[in-house]
C-alpha cells in the first residue's frame, strides 16, 4: 500500500490552492450530478480559470473542452485529475511537458507511477484528496455544514 501522507501535506495543499490560477480538470463532465462538475463549478465560482480536458465533451461550464492537456493553447498552473489510475502516468507526462506547477489526483485516483513522473518533473503533487474540499477547508466555508476543517486559530481573518 502506497504511503499517501507525503502527498496530503497541508503545507503543499495550501501552497497549490493559493498559487494556482488556471486549473485544467481532466475528466470534467458536463453532467451536473457528477463530482467533477461539482468541483469545476466550485473552482470557477472561487475565481480559478477552469479549462475542461475531456475528448467526449465540446464545452463544460461555458468553457471549451480540449481532448488533451497538450491541446490547451495557454499556460496551466494546476492539473486536477478525475480519471482511472491507469491514465495518470500519461497525464503526468503531459503535465510536465506543458509546464504545470502541480498535479492533483482526486479521491481514489492513486498512481505511484504518475506521482514519480510528476515529482521528477518538479511538480507539487496532491493525491487522494478533493480540490473542492481542501479549498473549502482552508479558504472556503466547509465549516458552515458542520464538517471538521481541523483549523485551529485565534487570528481574525480578513473580512
Amino acid at each position: 500500500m502506497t504511503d499517501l501522507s507525503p502527498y496530503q501535506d497541508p503545507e503543499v495543499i495550501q501552497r497549490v490552492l493559493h498559487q494556482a490560477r488556471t486549473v485544467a480538470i481532466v475528466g470534467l463532465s458536463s453532467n451536473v450530478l457528477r463530482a467533477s462538475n461539482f468541483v469545476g463549478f466550485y473552482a470557477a465560482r472561487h475565481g480559478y480559470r477552469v479549462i475542461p480536458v475531456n475528448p467526449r465533451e465540446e464545452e463544460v461550464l461555458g468553457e471549451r473542452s480540449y481532448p488533451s492537456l497538450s491541446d490547451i493553447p495557454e499556460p496551466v498552473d494546476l492539473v486536477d485529475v478525475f480519471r482511472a489510475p491507469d491514465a495518470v502516468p500519461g497525464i503526468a507526462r503531459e503535465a510536465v511537458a506543458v509546464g504545470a506547477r502541480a498535479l492533483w489526483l482526486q479521491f481514489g485516483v492513486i498512481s505511484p507511477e504518475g506521482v514519480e513522473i510528476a515529482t521528477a518533473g518538479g511538480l507539487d503533487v496532491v493525491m487522494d484528496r478533493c480540490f473542492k474540499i481542501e479549498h473549502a477547508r482552508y479558504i472556503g466555508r466547509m465549516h458552515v455544514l458542520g464538517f471538521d476543517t481541523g483549523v485551529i486559530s485565534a487570528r481574525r481573518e480578513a473580512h
Partner: protein
Amino acid sequence: MSDDYQPDHEFGFHTRAVHAGARPEPTTGARAVPIYQTSSYVFEDPESAAAYFNLQEYGNTYSRIMNPTVAALEERLANLEGGIGAVAFASGLAAQSSALFTMLVPGDHMVASAALYGGTVTQLKHLARKLSVDLTFVDPDVPADWARAVRDETRLLFAETIGNPGGNVLDIEAVAAIAHDAAVPLLVDNTFATPYLCRPMEWGADIVVHSVTKFIGGHGTSIGGAVVDSGEFDWSNGKFAIVADPSPAYHGLAFHETFGSYGYLMKLRAETLRDLGGAMSPLNAFLFMQGLETLPLRMERHVSNAMTVAQWLSERDDVAGVRHPGLPDSPYAPLTAKYLPKGAGAVFCFDLDRGREAGQDFIRGVRLFSHLANVGDAKSLIIHPASTTHRQLGDDELAAAGIGPGTIRLSIGIEDPQDLIWDLEQGFARMHGNGS
C-alpha cells in the same frame, strides 16, 4: 511557509475542546461564538442561492438545515471524536432516529445491544415497526452473539460504549470487526464516555451518536443530540442503495459518489434533517459549546468522584453489588483498561440488598443528590430505574437490561466527594428506618 497558512501541528484535546470550530467571527471580531438567532439567510445573488440549494457551494439557507452557531458546535464535536463532520439535532433521540432513518429501508434488519438506555430500546422497537425493519437484541458482552444475529438483510449494529444502566463496556474492536465482516456499519452511542474518555472511531466504529444533553453540556440546561461520522464506511458496497444511488428526494443526486466520504453526512443533513426537521436551536448550541470548553476538566473530576463513591459503596454490607466498570472486581475490568483508561464514566448502578420499597426509601433520604431522570449533570443525580426511566419495559426486558427492583442509578457530579458520601449515608439511614 506563508504566515497565512495553517501549520501542520497536532493540537491536544484540551486545546481543541476550547478552540475547534470557533475561529474569531470575521465581521466583528467577536471572540465568543455568536448566537446566530435567525431562521434564514439573505443570498448574495440568485446564482449563489442556486449553488447553495444544489449543494455545489457551502452556504446557509435555512436554520432547520444549518446555522452558524450550531455548525461551530458540530465542528468541535466532530474534531473531538475524530470524525470528519457532525450534524446536531434537537435531542439525542432525534439524532439517533435520523442516523438510522438515513440508512434503512423496509425489509432491512438491525442488531442492537439488549443493554441500552430504555428510551433507545423503545425507539428502536417503534422505528422497526414503522419502517418495517427487523430488529434483534443481543447480549452485548458476547461477540459471538452479535455474529450469530447477523443475516443477509442486516444493515447495522448498534451499541453503547458504556451500557445504561448495566455498565457493560463494549468490546468495540471485536463488534466493529463483526460489522465490517458483514459490510455494515457499527453505530455507537458514546454519551456516557464522551470523546474525552473514549473515541469509538479509533477502535473501528463508523458512526457515533450523542445525547449532548449529558456530559457534553454538563449544565443540564438544554436538550440536544449529534451524529458524528468517521467517513470510513463504504456506502457504495452494494448494500446501501438508499445512500449510494441517485436520490429522487434530491433531484437525482448520488450522495456517496458525489461527496465521497462526506456523502452520508450530506444526505443526513440535506435530506433527513430537512425532511424530519429535528434541528437544534442556536441558543442551545451556544450553551453546549460553553459546556464543551470544560469537558476534559469536568470529566476528570466526574470519574474520580465516581470511583470514590463506588469504592465506598462496594464496602458496605447492605449493598448487594456495585456495577461500576472501573472497580477491580468488575467483569468489565479488562475492557475498561483497554477502552477507558482515563476512567469508566460517572454513571453507575448499585443494588440494595432488598426490594422496591427500600429503593424508594433510599431516594427519600438523600438531599444533595437530585431525584430526576437525567445523567451527566455537574450536579449529582439519583434515580430508581424500575419505577421511572425503564418502566415501559417488561420484566424480561428489565432483566436483560440488568435492572432489579432494588437497583439505584447514580450520576456522580463534580461536588466534593465527602459531601456525596455524607448524603448517601442519609439514604441508607432512611432505608434502615432511622433517617430524618
